[in-house]
């Protein structure tokens, strides 16, 4: 069985759904950040797959993927800093307890 674009897209979609599930269900802020990483990488798989099968001559998809990876690294940096600050102020990393901005 030849591996084609569809397989990559299905893997990307599954990975995105796993990430989304993690983001929506985990209580720990660090775990949510990890979910976000999964979703970003699902997007990366899509970008690379489309680059390979739809427009192999272009480099746009690969460049975009690299940008996303860089972005993800930055995002984790900022996100962890936020988590630490939240912990220092609210003494918790559980997002269901961080609900000061309600009503």
């Amino acid at each position, binding site marked *: 069985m030849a591996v084609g674009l569809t397989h990559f897209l299905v893997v990307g979609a599954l990975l995105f759904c796993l990430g989304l599930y993690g983001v*929506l269900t985990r209580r720990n802020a660090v775990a949510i950040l990890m979910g976000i990483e999964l979703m970003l990488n699902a997007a990366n798989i899509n970008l690379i797959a489309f680059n390979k099968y739809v427009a192999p001559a272009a480099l746009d998809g690969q460049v975009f993927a690299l940008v996303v990876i860089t972005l993800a690294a930055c995002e984790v940096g900022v996100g962890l800093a936020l988590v630490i600050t939240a912990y220092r102020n609210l003494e918790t990393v559980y*997002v269901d307890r*961080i609900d000061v901005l*309600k009503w």
Partner: protein
Amino acid sequence: MRDLAWLIPLFPLVAFGLITALGRRLPGEGSHVAVAGIGLSALLSIGIFVEMAFGAPPAEMTVRWMMLGGNPLELGFRVDHLTTIMLLVVTVVGSMIFIYSIGYMHGDPRFPRFFAYLSLFAASMLLLVLADNLLFLYAGWELVGLCSYLLIGFYFERPSAARASLKAFLTTRVGDFFMFLGILLVFLTLGSFRFEEIFARVREGALAGATIGGLPLLTLAAVLIFGGAVGKSAQVPLHTWLPDAMEGPTPVSALIHAATMVAAGVYLVARTFTLFLDWPAAGALHGGAALQAVAYVGGITALMAATIAVVQDDIKRVLAYSTISQLGLMMLGLGMLGYTAGMFHLMTHAFFKALLFLGAGSVIHAMGTNDIKAMGGLARTMPSTYWTFLIGALALAGVPPLAGFWSKDEILLEAFHHNTGLFVMAALTSLLTAFYMFRVIFYTFTGTLRSHDAHPHESPPVMTLPLWVLAGFSAVVGLVGAPMLGNPMHRFLHFEGVAAVPFSVGLALLSTAIAGAGILAAAVTYRWGIVPSSALRRAAGPLYALVVRKYYFDELYALAVVRPVLWIGRSLRVFDVYVIDMLVNLIGVGVVALARLYRLFDLYVVDGVVNLVGWTAKALGGTLRYVQTGRAQNYLLAIALGVIVIVAAGLLR
């Protein structure tokens, strides 16, 4: 000099303006200005008189004022023989009274105002006299009425003075109303106010045979105009205001209510004499029905007022009734075709009655009371006042050769020739006049002082000097009508077409005898006490009661006029309070009720809608705020579900 006549009323008017504006800052606190004003007028009047006496023709100055329905309305001055006489009387007597007032009013808190009023009066009176048309004359007529009102009420703190001024004003207004109707009637039929035009038309017989409502028009107009004279000259039945007018300061009584203003009625009749006559196409002139009315009103007034004067104890009231009586005599003279006689008596009367009033003022000044029964023996303490008063009284009584004798004799002469009944009335009036004047003299100046708390003293020279000047005039002014001197008065002033009645020595002796009898009777009763006055009172009985109550005129008017008018006024007030005000209040209450209703509408409907909107928004917000949980995951879930729904919708389409 006759074309300067317009200056005559101007001088006192300017004085009035100056005193009103500057008051006490003027020399003599305004009195010197007032005297200067009237004095200049007097000099000018004398000049004009001299000019006229040397035969200058009458002069007239007229300016067009405006057009009234095709008829020009003109204002102007007319200087003729009648005017000249009046000018002389008003300004000369006026000057003396002005000077006297400086002494009499000394120390009065409203001293400048008194002289302002006096000057205004003089200006108005001179305007009245100089007017060349009925309208202008009427303006002066009302102005003197106003001044009279102001001066009677000069001591307005006294309720009696305030009432008297109102009474004088309202009573004369009744006459003025008729007079104005008469003036309008003349204007409507002849289309002019000017004397010269009116008289010329009447002489041509323009109104002969004309009737209005079945009445002869000329007679009606004359009687209506005479109505004004009845009011102003205090003739029966409008005489009741003059005795009350004595509430004013005595110089005012002398000037306005004896010498000049009240004589304006007589002047009016003389001025419009043409209207009172019948103008037959041929034959001698004779008086019309209107002139008869003048004669009878005058005769009745003369006799009635003379009887009342006999029983008065207030020195000024005696003189007031005497004035009414003498004015009646003048009217009687005019009514008997005695044009010259009436005006002659007006002139002499002005001098000696002003003198008598000023003398009375001097006495009142010294005694502080008007009651002659409280006086007595003043001849010794006040010789100047006594002698001048005596000259005035003799002149009034008609003792030759003083002024009153000549003029009264002429009236008696006219009456004797035309109407025996009226002659008897005039003769009786003369008898009573002599009697009451000497009653006053005996009570006031002879015997001993009856009041114990008075310290009479002679008045200052500023008061006695005018007395002596007026006494001089009273003594000699009658000689201008003396037949031995050719009766210059008659030559100066007479009515064309009316024959003069020849002088009669017999009648002159009779009139002297009447005056002597009156004086003798007074002496018998009040000087020697041979017949005590109480005996006279008892003998007269009910007649005395009638006279002492002044023939019940005041009571009659109170019953017939004053009380009904007051009743109507009060009724109207009740109507006003309970009906008109009620209506107004009802409307007010209705509006308030409506406003209350609208307030409810505003509160519950308009505000309700607004509140409902607000409340709905609030409820909605209150419910929906729980969506904001503050948990980021919930929001994220909503976003994810939203994306799924959008994508699903996109795929299914």
